Structures are given as structure tokens and as C-alpha cells.
């Protein structure tokens, strides 16, 4: 197990280095000269040179890369070209919003999705399965921006149950924080739960037809143990995979939902930066997103080995 862990950590580190190179090169490959964009109307050679010097753009790419990496390693991601604010603080204020929203949404999605998936598999061919399937289809086909707007219209505006927009940091007021986030998280979560439900259902059906389920039944175990333990544990690999992918996608920006509920999250930061050609911010946003994906993937892989002992052995071999 320890060797598997070290192996996986090492792989993650390599991936992170590669991601950094791709991010750096990607931003440089974008059309247009950032100095020109910055200089604006009065682009005399003197001010262009000054700008290039200020941002280190006159250095070779190798030097620039080294500076980018060494600064990033110290947590210095540069300043926003537009506002001069340190990128680090922009990310530190946007990221917690998105992480909280994503984690809440994925929790809601997992509870609904796994629960409905298990019921659909166990009650195969009975009304409960039809209901679960119909709900999943609805969840997949209804766009969540529409669902979000309807929720605001009815639950927030008409009934006044939830605030329609805005955000309160968790540490200043946890209750108000949850109150603001629960509706967007629910909207995001229900959409994702449909996918989780379908995956859970099909992997549960596989597991339930396995020989070891017959063994569990022949042992006289109660249905709770046969389904909830023996079958579910074997289906979890698929569920964990899909949940990991979804969480990664959520963190890189639940753009639409954040926009609708006016949440100052990562999605909003990304969109604003792209529209404003704020290269240091874009670069940092992509890097953080890539890191988030790598970390989530690592966690998913570690979870695999916790769920299925056979993976531990393969990792060691």
C-alpha cells in the first residue's frame, strides 16, 4: 500500500510539471502581444519596451518559464494586468466559493444518485425503477440554467425561501453562507445526480447478478447486507470515477450557475479574465484548475485501492 501511494504521488508530481509547461506554452501561444494589448492607444516603442521589461516579456521563454515556476512555487502568481491586484488573492477569494458550492453539489448529487440507482437496480422492472428512470431522464434533459431561473422565480422571489443571489463567507456567518449556497448546490446537484444514478444502476445490476451475491444470499444475510454491502461495495469503483470527474468539472467552473446566482466564484473569475485578456489571471486559473484535477484524480485512485484490494496489489506489482 505504501509503495502504491508513493508511486501515485510521484506520477501526480510529473503530471503537475507537464501541466505547468502546457499552461505556460498555451498562454504564450495565444495570438496577440500582451504588451501591445496593455499599451493601448499610445504604443510608442519606449512605453512598449518599458512594459516588456516590467513583465519580463523581453526575457527568453526559458527564463520567463523559470520565473513563472519559481514565483508560482512561492505562491506568487503575479498581478492582474487590469487591476493590479495580486492574482493570488483573487484566486483565494474565488476558490473557496467554488469549492464549497462544488462539494455541496456533489454531496447532494451522490446521495440522490446512489440512492436512486440502488433502488432502480433492486426494484428492476417495478414502478420504483420506472420512477427513478423517469426522474433521471428529466434531470438529464432539463438545462440547469432554466431550473436555476425557475427556482429563483418561485422559491426565492415568490416564496422568499432562499436569497436569490449573493454570497456570505462561511467564517463570517455559517448559517447565512449555507442559506445562500443551498439553492445553487441543489440545482447543480440534481442535474449531476441523474448521471450518477444511471451509472450506479447499471453497475449495481452487474454486481447483483454476480456469483458472490448468490453466496451472500445462501449465507442467509439480510437484504440490507446483500445489497448495501456486498453489491454496493463492488459498484462503488464506477460511482467514485464518475463523481471524481464531475467534481473536477465543477471546480473548473460552474460558470452558468455561478452567473445566475451571482456567486463570486471561480467560474466568474475565469470568464471575466478571458474577456479582459488578463493573461496572468488566465494562466493562474488554468494552473489551479489543472492542479485541482490532478489532486482529485489522485484521491479517486487512492479511493479505488481502499474499495478494491485487487488494485492495491496491481499498483505494487
Amino acid at each position, binding site marked *: 500500500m505504501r509503495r502504491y501511494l508513493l508511486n501515485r504521488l510521484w506520477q501526480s508530481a510529473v503530471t503537475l510539471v507537464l501541466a505547468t509547461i502546457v499552461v505556460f506554452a498555451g498562454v504564450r501561444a495565444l495570438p496577440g502581444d500582451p504588451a501591445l494589448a496593455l499599451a493601448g492607444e499610445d504604443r510608442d516603442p519606449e512605453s512598449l519596451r518599458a512594459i516588456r521589461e516590467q513583465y519580463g516579456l523581453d526575457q527568453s521563454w526559458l527564463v520567463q518559464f523559470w520565473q513563472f515556476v519559481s514565483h508560482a512555487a512561492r505562491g506568487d502568481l503575479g498581478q492582474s494586468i487590469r487591476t493590479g491586484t495580486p492574482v493570488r488573492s483573487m484566486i483565494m477569494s474565488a476558490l473557496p466559493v467554488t469549492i464549497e458550492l462544488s462539494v455541496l453539489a456533489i454531496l447532494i448529487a451522490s446521495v440522490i444518485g446512489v440512492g436512486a440507482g440502488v433502488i432502480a437496480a433492486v426494484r428492476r422492472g417495478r414502478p420504483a425503477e420506472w420512477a427513478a428512470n423517469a426522474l433521471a431522464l428529466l434531470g438529464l434533459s432539463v438545462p440547469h440554467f432554466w431550473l436555476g431561473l425557475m427556482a429563483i422565480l418561485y422559491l426565492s422571489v415568490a416564496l422568499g425561501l432562499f436569497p436569490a443571489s449573493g454570497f456570505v463567507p462561511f467564517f463570517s456567518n455559517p448559517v447565512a453562507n449555507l442559506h445562500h449556497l443551498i439553492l445553487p448546490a441543489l440545482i447543480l446537484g440534481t442535474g449531476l445526480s441523474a448521471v450518477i444514478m444511471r451509472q450506479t444502476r447499471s453497475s449495481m445490476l452487474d454486481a447483483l447478478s*454476480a*456469483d458472490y451475491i*448468490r*453466496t451472500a444470499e445462501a*449465507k442467509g*444475510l439480510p437484504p440490507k*447486507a446483500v445489497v448495501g454491502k456486498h453489491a454496493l461495495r463492488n459498484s462503488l469503483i464506477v460511482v467514485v470515477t464518475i463523481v471524481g470527474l464531475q467534481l473536477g468539472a465543477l471546480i473548473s467552473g460552474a460558470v452558468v450557475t455561478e452567473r445566475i446566482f451571482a456567486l463570486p466564484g471561480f467560474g466568474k473569475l475565469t470568464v471575466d479574465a478571458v474577456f479582459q485578456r488578463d493573461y496572468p489571471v488566465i494562466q493562474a486559473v488554468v494552473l489551479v484548475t489543472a492542479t485541482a484535477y490532478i489532486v482529485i484524480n489522485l484521491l479517486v485512485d487512492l479511493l479505488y485501492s481502499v474499495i478494491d484490494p485487487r488494485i492495491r496489489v496491481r499498483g505494487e506489482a
Partner: protein
Amino acid sequence: MKPVLAVKDLSVTFRTEDGPLSAVDRVSFEVGDGEVLAVVGESGCGKSVTAMSIAGLLPRTATVNGSVELDGTELIGADKRTLRSIRGREVAYIFQEPMTSLNPVFTVGHQIIEVLRTHIGLNRQAAHARAIELLKLVGIPSAERRVGDYPHQLSGGMRQRVMIAMAVACDPKVLIADEPTTALDVTIQAGILDVLRGLRERLGTSIVLITHDLGVVADLADRVAVMYAGRVVETAEVHDLFAHPEHPYTVGLLGASPAAGRHAESQRLNEIPGLVPVLTEQPDACTFADRCSRAVDTCTSSQPQLTDGPHRVACWNPVRERVEV
């Protein structure tokens, strides 16, 4: 002596998309205390379905009629809770595929402990200690270490021993072994049969041995029931059956099985022509008639019933003369 397990007129029909399918037709047999009854027959003759129906393990598409009495308790039609309390405790199963019959994500110890905790309510430590004892009982070396292994860390033979340990954990009255050695190498098979024999001798467990391997039958069984197309066609004490098979199907079955020294000159095993029929309903005739060389007119117009006595046969024209098989 009262039998431990008494199966009487057991019939099983499956609902399929092509209509009903009759898998077992009025099967009756009894298993005495500490007795090993072998149920033999070709694939598809209904022997596994019979085994599964005893503790109500068939899918919802199956309709089961008749009676299965375990020590006087009727199991057919019993409610789910009763059946659950009997499975693993009074009636335990061993299946054919040791590779897939154990759950890959739990240690073998955990899977044994689970039975003990469900049925006997042992605490964790006691169940753990008992699990190690059971692994020793079925001949697993260094059981203290093996108890923490996952199924994939064990060989097929070892896994089947774990299955047996799990099955006998609560000292069941009846052990149903459905092709327990079929998926294993011959050398491993002998070891598993030794374990089963040992259990019968030490614990007095009655065993229903489902198999198509007559070598296994000769090795372990006290009595044999031969099944064909969902019916028991002959049942006798094992030596009697091997020495004087009366049903033409039993004769064919014995002739089709290899044995050292036999068939040496012909180089070829005898075969029974044709296949086991798939029946949508049970006809009032002998189902073996169209494959039988001894068939007479009555065979296709009336169903033969099992005779009485220690050696029972359902045949209109049984083999009474000594045959060399």
C-alpha cells in the same frame, strides 16, 4: 430413522419469454442423518435447480410446488425471514465456481465472520477466533495469516476450502454441494473431497452432492439419485447402482464415464445419442424414450413411476440382466 431432509413431489417451472419452462418434475428424495446423497445427471437435467429450490434461492421467475421438509419444518412457501434464518445456519451451500463465489472486496475471514455474527451472534473476537478454527478444519495452512487474505490472494482449491469453511461455520444439518470440484484440477479435487468426507465423519453433516462426475459419486456418496430431464429416474445405494444399474439412462451414463482399464480395447467411450430435451410441459411419457435403445410402446404413452424398495427405478423396460459397463 427420520430423514433430515425430505423432498417430496418438488416441481419447478420458470416463466420465460417463450412461455413456461418445466425444469423439475415431481422430484422426491430423502437424506438421512450424516448421509451423503449424490444427485447425478447431465447438464440441464434440473439437479442444480433442485438444489437451489431447497432454501428458496431461485429467482422470482420460478414457481416452486411440492414439499421440502428440513427436520420437520416445511420450507416451500415459508416466509423470507424464516428462509433467511435457515440459510447458512441449517442448510448451507457450496458452489461450483470458487473463483467468483467469494466477494473480491472483503477478506475471507470477514466473509466467514459475517455468517457467524448473523446467525450465532458471536462478538468480533470470538467470531475471528472461530474463523481461524474453521480454516484449520478445512485444511488451510497458516490459517492465522490466511484469515486476513483477500480471495484473489488464494488459489482455486484454497478458495473452495474457504467456501466450505463458510458453509459449515454454523454446523448446518445439511450441506448442499453444487458441483464442488468441477472447476478444480484433479489433484485439488481429491483434497476437497477429503475435506467433505472429514466433515461428514467429524460433524455428522448430511451432504447433498450435486455432480455429473461419477468418480466423485463413487468416492463420497452413500446413495445416488439419477436425474434426467427434471425427473428422478433411478435411486439406489451407491454400490448397488454401480453394480446393477436398472434404468437404461443410468447404464448409458456409467458407460459414458471413463475408468482406468475399461474401454482399453475400444479406445472410445460409449455415448448416449441425442440431447436432454427442453420441456415446456412434462408429458405423460418417459422423457428418455426417444434416446433409449430399450424403448417399448408403453414408454411413449405413459409415464413410468418409481418403484418401491431400496433400489427404485422409473422405467417400463428396466435392465434386469447383468450388464457389463
